[in-house]
């Protein structure tokens, strides 16, 4: 865990207080109406739209000096955009950061939910590119907001059913839509559907920020979150035929790494912190020792 002094010339966590209040009010409304997308006056941030500006604004609005922040992208703490966002908060908020899921009070994520079960004193902040689960079925905001108001989700079921008719499967593997407390259909952000079950009855507060699309939504702790499916085609989380080559885990989401140009591949945990912890506990995968350092990483 590291702590950094704040760069002078910025307000704490970059945003001005009026902007923070505006975002905070939106967060409270989002918590009170789980799964509903609250419009908010997203600000221009010093990083590009589509690169986490929504998550960054939510994190900046909730972060306090006693927080410990973890930032992940694709499950990893050392992907370039995760590094960039973590540095931003180290610089502007002087906040302590960590890579250990269990130590963090606020976790900002892109595309993954950590493998370790989250606790009641944690907040998970998702970066969301397209918050509207119906957007790819109906491109008009003016239409989709009425569909949500009328709880008219027939189009979504038709789309999923067409998948089954054409492919024999629901062909959605990430950003798999969920229904929240039997009311709102919600986009879980582009997390793999492997992670969907973790959203249900989660002990941590989950906040979702979409900067370019100017929406904030939330799942309070212990909220009912159900992946959309059909009785004869129930939701199935992705399963892997492999164990992690580094830590041997069989219950985690794996990245496929191409190791040579002769078809060589290995599968490793996408959640790098979880994988390193397991190795520190003595778990060993088949390929540990053979894997290049860039893949194996540097456990303590």
């Amino acid at each position, binding site marked *: 865990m590291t702590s950094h002094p704040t760069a002078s010339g910025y307000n704490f966590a970059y945003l001005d207080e009026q902007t923070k209040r505006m975002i905070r009010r939106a967060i409270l409304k*989002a918590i009170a109406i789980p799964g509903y997308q609250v419009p908010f006056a997203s600000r221009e941030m010093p990083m590009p739209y589509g690169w986490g500006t929504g998550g960054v604004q939510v994190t900046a609005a909730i972060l306090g000096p006693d927080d410990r922040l973890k930032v992940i992208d694709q499950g990893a703490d050392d992907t370039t955009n995760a590094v960039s966002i973590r540095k931003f908060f180290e610089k502007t908020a002087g906040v302590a950061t960590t890579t250990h899921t269990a130590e963090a009070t606020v976790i900002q994520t892109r595309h993954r939910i950590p493998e370790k079960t989250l606790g009641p004193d944690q907040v998970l902040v998702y970066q969301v590119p397209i918050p509207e689960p119906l957007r790819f079925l109906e491109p008009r905001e003016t239409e989709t907001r009425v569909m949500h108001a009328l709880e008219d989700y027939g189009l979504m079921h038709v789309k999923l059913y067409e998948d089954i008719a054409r492919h024999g499967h629901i062909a959605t593997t990430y950003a798999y839509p969920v229904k929240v407390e039997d009311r709102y259909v919600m986009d879980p952000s582009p997390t793999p559907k492997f992670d969907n079950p973790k959203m249900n009855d989660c002990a941590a507060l989950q906040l979702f920020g979409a900067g370019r699309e100017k929406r904030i939504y939330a799942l309070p702790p212990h909220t009912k979150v159900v992946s959309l499916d059909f009785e004869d085609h129930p939701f199935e989380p992705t399963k892997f035929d492999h164990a992690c080559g580094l830590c041997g885990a069989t219950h985690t989401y794996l990245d496929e790494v191409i190791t040579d140009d002769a078809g060589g591949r290995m599968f490793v945990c996408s959640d790098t912190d979880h994988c390193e912890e397991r190795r520190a506990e003595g778990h060993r995968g088949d390929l540990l020792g053979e894997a290049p350092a860039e893949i194996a990483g540097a456990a303590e």
Partner: protein
Amino acid sequence: MAVALAFADPVRDAQAAFRAVMNAMARPGSVQPVAGLTGAPAPLSPTAAAIAVALADYETPLWLDPALAAAPDVGAWLTFHTGARIVAEPARAAFALVAEPAALPDFATFAQGTDVYPDRSTTLILQVASLTGGPVLRLSGPGISGHAHLAATSLPADITAHLAANHALFPRGVDLVLAGPEGVAALPRTTRVTEEA
């Protein structure tokens, strides 16, 4: 020029007060400590004052209940420290500050949002004498594992009926923030409330 600050450390204190309200809203019935603003003019309570200063500004019209509206200092103090306008019609208010919840007007007089924008609703900040020791309410819904309890004092006798009617409007409805000397608790529109037998 020295301007009297409501919060001694505006950035840090506002964040702490907000985080308490956020945690309260995320876990209905739980009591989250808040450092009150002792400089607030009576009958505005220190906890309610801290919440108002943390959340309100010129973009959020405030409505004051008759007890608060009758105290001339309260409106002036809130306007000075937040920049918020005081409005006479509860339906135009983003926040309603209520010093006497027992005399609470019907929730329907406040903004309850629309089907398309249910977030365009009033948040009620109710001052209570205590968040414990009152009649026990049994709570369930999002934010609660199984069920929870809240035993705030000062609420109207028929509060569960009001809350049930409010819950039935979902996703429309108002959200309640209870400010007591122990801190803050919340009853968002999602919470199902019954009297504990």
